């Protein structure tokens, strides 16, 4: 068990190192000159040279990388010139909004996938399974930003069920006192029910759109798992011992496949930063995704670099956690087990 964790940890560290180096070289070497991008097209060569020196761009790329990593470990992610704030501050302002959106969409995706796949497999008729297959294919093929627009048009503007693209709270609603930064949880902690309702009302539609793709993927996976498990001998044994169909399904078959969802769900969670990017942009959600989209259009290298690094670390940490959990839960997946 320990050797499994240590080995995976080593690979993770190497991967993060590779990813950070890759992102660094990509953004330092390919674009020509960040200094020129900051100073603008009208800047004199002297200004650019001075700026290059102050940014440390005149040094060896590996020395620059070393300095960059050193400042990262000090918690300094660089300076965003397009907004005039340190990147660390920006991230801490934006991260809770994305986290809140991501968490709810993961909950929606897993919940909906488990329920629909369970019902489709439990039902002996063919149409629920067909319906699931078609709807999940459609959900996988739908461009999230277009679905977001469609949802806004139909549900917010035509029928007024959900708020328009106005961010996390209606204008005029005061933010709950910050504890976690997640407005729904903070308002609950403060006992502000009206604010909680407002925050949740703003959250549901974007979260559902973000959840669409992951839901499709997970429901297919879980459906296949369930169908495979139903053929196992322990199911036949349980049934032949006189257990009814539903308890067998609910107690033995359904939990059996849940574990296999863990690695896939962790991958999807790691990908949420990208998945929510466009949806945040459409809904005017003040999260990391819309910040990244703006930073890229503004050519704000420090922000993009920090987000790339963050995404890579998130991915590696989440997959490592999933691996360790899997190894703990299922001895067959441990290193050297086979």
């Amino acid at each position: 068990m320990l050797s499994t964790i240590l080995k995976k940890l080593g690979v993770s560290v190497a991967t993060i190192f590779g990813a950070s180096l890759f992102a660094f070289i990509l953004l330092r070497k390919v674009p020509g000159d960040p200094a020129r991008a900051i100073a603008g097209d009208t800047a004199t060569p002297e200004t650019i040279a001075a700026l290059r020196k102050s940014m440390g761009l005149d040094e060896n790329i590996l020395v620059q990388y070393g300095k960059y990593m050193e400042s990262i470990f000090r918690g300094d992610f660089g300076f965003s010139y397009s907004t005039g704030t340190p990147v660390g501050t920006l991230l801490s302002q934006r991260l809770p909004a994305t986290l809140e959106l991501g968490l709810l969409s993961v909950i929606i995706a897993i919940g909906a996938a488990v329920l629909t796949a369970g019902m489709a497999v439990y039902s002996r008729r063919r149409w629920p399974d067909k319906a699931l297959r078609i709807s999940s294919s459609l959900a996988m093929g739908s461009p999230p930003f277009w679905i977001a627009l469609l949802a806004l048009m139909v549900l917010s503007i035509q029928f007024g069920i959900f708020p328009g693209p106005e961010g996390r709270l209606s204008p005029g609603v005061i933010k709950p006192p910050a504890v976690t930064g997640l407005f729904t949880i903070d308002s609950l902690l403060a006992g502000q029910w009206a604010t909680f309702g407002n925050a949740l009302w703003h959250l549901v539609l974007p979260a559902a759109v973000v959840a669409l793709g992951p839901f499709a993927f997970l429901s297919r996976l879980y459906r296949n798992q369930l169908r495979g498990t139903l053929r196992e001998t322990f199911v036949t044994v349980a049934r032949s011992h006189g257990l009814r169909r539903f308890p067998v399904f609910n107690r033995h078959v359904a939990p059996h496949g849940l574990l296999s969802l863990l690695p896939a769900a962790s991958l999807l969670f790691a990908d949420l930063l990208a998945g929510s990017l466009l949806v945040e942009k459409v809904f005017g959600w003040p999260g990391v995704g819309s910040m990244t989209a703006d930073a890229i259009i503004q050519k704000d290298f420090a922000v993009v670099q920090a987000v790339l690094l963050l995404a890579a670390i998130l991915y590696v940490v989440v997959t490592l956690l999933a691996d360790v959990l899997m190894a703990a839960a299922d001895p067959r997946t441990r290193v050297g087990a086979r």
Partner: protein
Amino acid sequence: MTAVAVTPASPARSRPIRSFLKRDAALTLTLSLLAALILLTLIGPFLWRVAPDDINLSAVLQPPSVAHPMGTDDTGRDVLARFLAGGRTSMLAGLGIALIGAVVGCVTALLAGSMRGWVDTVFTWLTNSILCFPAILLAMAIAMALQPGVTAAVIGLSLHSFPWYMRTLRGEVMRLYGQDFIRSTTALGAHPGRVLFRHVFPHLVPIMILQMAAVFGAAVLSLAALGFLGLGAQPPTAEWGEMITEGQQFFLTGQWWIAGFPGLGLLVAVTLTTLIADRAREVLDPRGEFTQAK
């Protein structure tokens, strides 16, 4: 017949595939629909002879009619003409990404799987490092670093697609090298190159086809996402994602057709690809050995 053309197959294989298509109605239907869509976007501009960037200020924001089957946008451009031109951009770029990824991924997989040692370690490390970035984020960063446009988008998305191929194919190459038929070929004195290309490579082809279908669908979507953010095709080049951005503000005020049709095109193209990939997986990979996570 057009359906057969989409499935790359050697002559020896084409007969079973043809008879198979006859029996598998669902696959035949989805394949022909996708082929029809691709064909439409490729030859459509010759059939619908309206220039995609022809501005006509006397026919602005017209709803779909006989003269403009998909309506016109805010500068009076014909949406159908732009839909066809944009589809061509999306399809060709998607195919390009799937192909580039397949070639690079296959070469690196063959190198890593046959040479092993440090070559394998370096390639695995490299692909792991690339794969921990979300595809769209990496492509966005590359579009920013280079000049935003279709070329940068294709480079960025290919860079993220080749590790998927490499990862799956490498495992298969390693598995094949342990098989008796490869070992006996080597023992008979066959040149390592001959073993690699005549005996190992043909086994990779079905897996590559499966992955290409998956990569194509994902690439078309990511490309549109980049276009939507203004990092893919640059106006006035028509591309489905870019068209959705242009129609975004009108979408919310009732002129749904400008952004509606390109979105529908994307939905249909990618859903068809998913269905085909699903079915092909059941045929080419019945044991589910190469089913990848994404």
